[in-house]
């Protein structure tokens, strides 16, 4: 009896000790993670508040983080009075069209690279060559592309951006889709082929529905990349009718008298579609951001 008692208190002690230890270790984690979280989000929150503050509150000292009278005047100013509404439309048209083109051209190439046995180990060589074109620093191709677009009189058109973004996204689509096709067992298509389907028929009816989630994820990545792209847009479009949202915002930043509210309002709107896509994409984020190198 006595013996049993000491034993139980001993194990209780050990139990509470390990609970304490888990508590300390976990809270140590939180003590490090919370500042990181704050550091990641506070600057974005600060911009949102600036976009909603009157000019008096914007310049107030000490800076009001939470208590101020919100106003939508900067949003009205940016998207109704100024041309930001038009930049927004241009950004959307360019992103959607170039993504569509890159998806169609890229998926076909990816399927061929993943499924057909090409001579002279071309599958591997072509894939690596395609990847290497994506590794060119943007400024390297921006200079000649500007001159080429000038020669064919496409400067300051949405078409120039659609063309350039299609080419820019193509290697990404090919690498992502090649990985998704390679993950599929071959038997499924072969069964369709045996059943008398053509290659194209097997691709459209059997393979594409199976890779649809991958295709959707790839499409969203392309949309984000095109929506965020800055350097090509800056070089190729300088008129209100053709410039994208990032170029429009940047143009306001580098002026001498900066309208902070208008700029923050435009920037806040620019991040909305991105955050929505990012939430949907969580599962594919690692794979997409490493061009398929890490299958997270």
């Amino acid at each position, binding site marked *: 009896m006595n013996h049993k008692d000491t034993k139980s208190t001993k194990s209780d002690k050990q139990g509470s000790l390990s609970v304490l230890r888990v508590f300390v270790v976990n809270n140590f*984690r939180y003590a*490090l*993670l919370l500042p990181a*979280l704050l550091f*990641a*989000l506070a*600057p*974005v929150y*600060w911009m949102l508040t600036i976009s909603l503050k009157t000019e008096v509150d914007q*310049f107030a*000292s000490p*800076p009001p983080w939470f208590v101020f009278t919100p106003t939508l005047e900067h949003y009205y100013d940016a998207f109704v009075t100024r041309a930001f509404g038009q930049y927004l439309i241009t950004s959307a048209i360019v992103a959607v069209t170039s993504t569509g083109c890159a998806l169609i051209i*890229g998926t*076909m190439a990816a399927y061929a*690279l993943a499924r*057909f046995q090409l001579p002279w180990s071309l599958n591997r060589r*072509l894939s690596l060559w395609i990847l290497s*074109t994506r*590794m*060119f*620093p943007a*400024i*390297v*191709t*921006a*200079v*000649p592309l*500007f*001159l*080429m677009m000038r020669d064919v009189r496409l400067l300051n058109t949405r078409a120039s951006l659609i063309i*350039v973004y*299609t*080419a820019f996204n*193509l290697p990404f689509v090919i690498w992502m889709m090649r990985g998704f096709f390679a993950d599929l067992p071959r038997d499924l298509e072969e069964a369709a082929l045996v059943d008398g389907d053509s290659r*194209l028929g097997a691709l459209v009816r059997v393979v594409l529905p199976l890779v649809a989630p991958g295709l959707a994820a790839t499409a969203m990545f392309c949309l*984000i990349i095109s929506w*965020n792209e*800055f*350097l090509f847009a800056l*070089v190729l479009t300088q008129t209100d009718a053709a410039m994208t*949202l*990032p*170029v429009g*915002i*940047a143009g306001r930043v*580098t002026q001498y008298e900066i309208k*902070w509210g208008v*700029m*923050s309002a435009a920037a806040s709107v*620019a*991040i909305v579609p*991105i*955050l929505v896509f*990012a939430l949907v994409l*969580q599962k594919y*984020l*690692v794979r997409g951001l*490493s061009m398929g190198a*890490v299958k*997270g």
Partner: protein
Amino acid sequence: MLLPVLFIAPALAVLLSLSIYPLIYSVTISLQQETSAGVTWSFENFARLASDNFFLTAMAHTFVYTIAALTCEFLLGLGLALLLNKQIRGRGLFRASLLVPMMLPTVVVGVVWRLMLNPNFGAINGTLKQLGINTESLTWTASPRLAMLSVIAVDVWQWTPFVFLVLLAGLQAIPQGPYEAALIDGSSRWQTFRHVTLPLLKPAILIVLLLRTMDLLRVFDQIFILTEGGPGFATETISLYIYRTAFRFFDFGYAAAMSFVLLALTSVISAIYIRFLQAKEAV
């Protein structure tokens, strides 16, 4: 045999005309000189590089920027990944929130940090003032001394989440077996990290370092928005100098010559990384 050709041809046509042809175009303009007697060919644009102080300074800035940002992003990203590689409450929320900076358009990142770092009404100096710190000399992006530090800090803010995300995926792909063996052997936590975690994480580390190095060497957007390479030329990296040469001075030939130096640099460095990666895979 016709079908694969039909499938691949459009992609090849697009890449040849919009990635390869521009490079060839670039080679020709970098070798051409327009003189009164017509167009002549020479290596003058490349010869100029060695004695151009703007170019040499921009290269130095690019290296400082790359090495400093890469080091900070790697150490912080690895730390965060290790902290979140446990089933703790709110993990999904932490992970999602930490990823916000990296998803933002770089232009928006520039705007966010211009607002934060503004000496007059920025949140950073405002908060420091509240804490009783004299902020008169802390002009951040406007100060020649602090501008480089500021743009590096902004890059670390935006891209540490990416390093974190890839390394976390790498950590989670490590099987439990080696850890159990280490536990039986009585290894300390540090020994386990040093001899089990790090070697198994190496491929993910190399890939993330490769991708970050490539992006850092060609950095343009954030610096363009934050400082335009200034004050003076204190934060002008190679991409910004190429942009200035081409689109402010319209010296396309010289800009093309410089862009080949950048291309060569990124190619050599990525080749070294890939060599390391393949060496790992072979073992």
